[in-house]
């Protein structure tokens, strides 16, 4: 009940609970510095869109948050766990962070339902029956209950991405990361994926979304981060960033994409 009181009822944000705290994050690929000192705090229930030109380090930043990329230096605290600490069991932390990839990455050797059931069953969070029930529920939510026994190769891109979202949700994560989830889709399929994401946002999921969909960022996000050259140049509400960008790089970028 207490949580409810501090929660902003319109945006679902709970400022009392910091889900992600990033401090002075640097990332090198060999000699190339991709992230040059990132600081960010993301609160429970917040939907944050990360925008910016390609090569600005948006995806690398996102991938550092579940340690698919190792931070070179800096600190990343997820739900109170310091994942840059070498002794931290990253697998346990990852169970709480769902990720959706640009290329969907559904397991090609499994049917749709097996894709969703695999992690909960393997990690012993659920029995097979429970996992199947939950998987069917999730498939219903993303509108694909009839595709349970299809293989990923038999689905369209948009359908595959919706299954990928269901697969991530099967672990009941607190945080969802989206790495350009609609960039590999044919234009007519973008909407169906964004709709699922909008619903998720409305339910209060903490979401970090790297995207080129400016319409989505404007409409759904609580906060927009604009990245260029490995740092966050500007951030604010969508109204601030899109309506009245103060940073020159942001103005330049928005002129090109809008």
């Amino acid at each position: 009940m207490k949580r409810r009181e501090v929660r902003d009822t319109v945006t679902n944000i709970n400022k009392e609970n910091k889900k992600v705290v990033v401090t002075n994050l640097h990332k090198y690929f060999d000699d190339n510095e991709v992230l040059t000192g990132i600081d960010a705090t993301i609160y429970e229930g917040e939907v944050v869109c990360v925008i910016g030109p390609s090569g600005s380090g948006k995806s690398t930043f996102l991938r550092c948050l579940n340690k698919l990329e190792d931070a070179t230096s800096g600190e990343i605290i997820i739900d109170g766990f310091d994942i840059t600490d070498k002794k931290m069991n990253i697998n346990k932390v990852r169970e709480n962070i769902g990720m959706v990839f640009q290329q969907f990455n559904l397991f090609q050797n499994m049917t749709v339902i097996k894709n969703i059931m695999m992690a909960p069953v393997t990690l012993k969070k659920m029995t097979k029956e429970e996992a199947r029930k939950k998987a069917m529920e999730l498939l219903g939510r993303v509108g694909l209950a009839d595709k349970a026994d299809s293989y990923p190769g038999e689905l369209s891109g948009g359908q595959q991405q919706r299954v990928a979202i269901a697969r991530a949700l099967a672990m009941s994560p607190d945080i969802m990361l989206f790495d350009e989830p609609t960039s590999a889709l044919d234009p007519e399929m973008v909407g169906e994926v964004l709709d699922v994401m909008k619903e998720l946002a409305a339910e209060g999921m903490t979401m970090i979304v790297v995207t080129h969909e400016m319409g989505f960022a404007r409409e759904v996000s609580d906060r927009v981060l604009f990245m260029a050259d490995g740092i966050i140049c500007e951030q604010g509400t969508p109204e601030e960033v899109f309506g009245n960008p103060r940073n020159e790089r942001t103005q330049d970028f928005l002129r090109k994409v809008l």
Partner: protein
Amino acid sequence: MDFGRVFQEALPMLLDGLWLTVRVSVISIAIGMIIGLFMCLMKMSKNVVLRAIAGVYIWIIRGTPMLVQALMIFFGLPQLIQLTINPDFRLDAFTAGIITLSLNAGAYLAEIYRGGIMAVPKGQSEAARSLGLSQGMTMLKVVLPQAIKFSIPSLVNQFIITIKDTSILSVIGMAEIVNKAKTYVGSTYVYFATYAVVALMYLLIISILMLVSSYIEKKLKYEAKRGKRHRDEH
């Protein structure tokens, strides 16, 4: 051309040899597949020592003829053990033959698996890791099942080579087809007909293997096509 005579006189012993060839092949391929898997995982591990062990093993096996390996394991190795550890040590031809063939197949299979694993897109293991699966579980549940599928043509090729390589084991006295045939022609001089029957026997086993594998490949191709057609419709 004495085919009638060979069938009458030598067929039972050649069939004995054929049966041994099949047994040795199956056992060696099975052991070789396990050795190969471990060597492949060692070669791909982050641990330098494991990587070095696998590297040296593959290097030695691929860099020396199997004939020499067979002689070494059947004659050389027992002598070394007799001189150093146990003077009563014995190794029969059957065991020595299986050791040789499995070690040999293992080295080549390790590389075949590695090729298969590298052919699995990186996103597959990233997706599994992002859900919280350990590296081992990711390998077991997601990467290996797909890697095996990619490797099937090369695996079958290696199985064929291993079956044919059993003939080399005749030099250490293993009573497989060629060894039996040599014994028979040694006393009868019926070379052509005997070796023709021997060749036909190999051709028979390998043809069966190829039929099975082309059936599996066709099935996999059909599944892939089915997937593609669906995608095109959308």
